[in-house]
């Protein structure tokens, strides 16, 4: 799966954009988070990776900005594999290998940011 952040202005707030695209393209989209006010908004959408080009194009046609999200970015030189971040992840994107190295699954990450300030080494960025 690939995550995209869709931002739109007040003009598009009333429009069922995601539903239109789901129906048009027959692609299942998962809204991971949404922050919408009468002034506009942004939604984080999980898209099947092989459909990413079609979906991004469909959104852009509707006059919104689309950015592909990379999720968390971990500086492995700074990381000491302490795992302080592990228990904060709501979607199990952070796990341990058998020898207790910490591994990060960018595909699962929903960029919620809960882990960022839990890192004693400041190794995590969104």
């Amino acid at each position: 799966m690939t995550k995209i952040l869709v931002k739109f202005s007040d003009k598009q707030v009333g429009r069922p954009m995601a539903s239109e695209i789901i129906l048009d393209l027959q692609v299942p989209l998962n809204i991971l988070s949404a922050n919408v006010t009468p002034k506009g908004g942004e939604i984080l959408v999980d898209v099947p990776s092989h459909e990413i080009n079609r979906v991004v194009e469909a959104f852009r046609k509707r006059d919104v900005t689309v950015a592909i999200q990379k999720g968390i970015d971990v500086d492995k030189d700074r990381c000491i594999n302490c795992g302080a971040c592990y228990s904060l992840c709501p979607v199990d994107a952070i796990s341990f290998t058998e020898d207790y190295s910490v591994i990060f699954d960018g595909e699962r990450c929903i960029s919620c940011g809960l882990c960022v300030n839990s890192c004693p080494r400041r190794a995590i960025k969104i």
Partner: protein
Amino acid sequence: MGAKTLRTVDEINEKIRKGDAIVLTATEMKKLVKDKGVTVAAKEVDVVTTGTLGAMCSSGAVINLGHADPPIKIQRAWLNNVEILHPGAAVDLFIGATVMDESRLFEYGGGHVIEELIRGKDVEFKAIGYGTDCYPRTQVESTLTKNNLNQFYMLNFRNCYQRYNCATNGRDEIIYTYMGKLLPHFGNASFSGAGELNPLCNDPDYETIGIGTRIFLGGAHGYVIGEGTQHDPHNASGTLMVRGDCKEMSPEFIRGATFTQYGTTLYVGLGIPIPILNEGLAKKTSVTDEDILTNIIDYGVPRRSRPSLGKVSYKALKSGKITINDREVKVSPLSSLNGAKMITETLKRWIDDAAFFLTAPVEQLPVTTVVNPMRQAREILFVEDITQPATVSYEDEPLEAVAKRIIERSVNHIVIVDTSGHLLGIVTSWDITRAVANGRKQLSEIITRKVVTVTPNEPIDSAARKLAQHNISALPVIDATGKVLGIITSEDLSRLIKG
């Protein structure tokens, strides 16, 4: 039983010299004892290597700068803007891991300075002095690396905690602690320590670990120089005081760190070889995570004695999930378990390569000391000591009645309760003024329903923090069920300071 000497430290060192010593990591030893039994393991194994790599706040470094010309007697000094805790004689400094750069609070501190120096980086030094006949200079600034320092050695008051609490949070807000970030409503947990790899868990009676024991410290040789502060062997919570030469250390095992809204610290890698002098030590070094238990503690309670929510083994903690109040929650290790394992392996390699020899302690560490709480000569206060009766109203009262009550009682805060006295919200005299100005009639329209509260047994410092954090002027005092017991206001707190 098990006390009969199988080999001495000298004999082991002779084997190390010849390349014949049998050295196992703690992990390997546990497997061997499980597979072949204690007696066989005791016969076969000479040394078991242990290790831990965790945040150890009572760490720091002693630095001697040499004299400037003209010379200065340092009164206050800074390295990379982190203040030195204690200047000793004229140019001796001790930099503590937890001292923070005031301009980068919580982000950069003594631990980071120590790491940067070990990495070979430049650090900015400045100092001031009051000037004396023999040391006339009053200020000095320079750029230094570790090569410019006469002495640069780590001196840690308390390292290597045998085990530590598992922390969780029962409050309804995220808290930031020295045990990391804890989610509300027991949403996660954290623990510290390496469990079965920890040196003291493998020699809990201090048979081989004592003053003078040579150890792995930060990737170099170091020494145990005594028991650590708060050493509590009775409660399986022993600690060590250690020193080592920072100039020889590796940044792989010494890392500055920061705990958000708590402060800076130093991750220290420490390993100890346990000589298997007798069968008893073979048995002790076979201890497993299953055998090492600790308490799950609610860090949401800001008191010295925090309630325990049960016991948990390091085996469960290392599995990543534990059960709190019948719910499964994720638990973070704060120590690097990967790093601890690496230390046991590195130390094993050193001994195999005859690059590290064992020492017998010159003196045993105490095994009976206990930790006492601080003597508090002056009374400290809790919320219950300054709680006033709350002026209350019910939700359906007209605004006018509430306004009258504010004037009659001469208060600024009205606590809104239901018929059984449970908290529903709060209204201030300012809310009423604004409501009247806007032509509102009903109290229910202006109630603040998300209320920050305190409990009677919270220290007043904690209440003062809540007032400041939320920029409010009063806190309803409630019991565990939400029943209103009274109120405390910022005026009550200010009166205390005035005396």
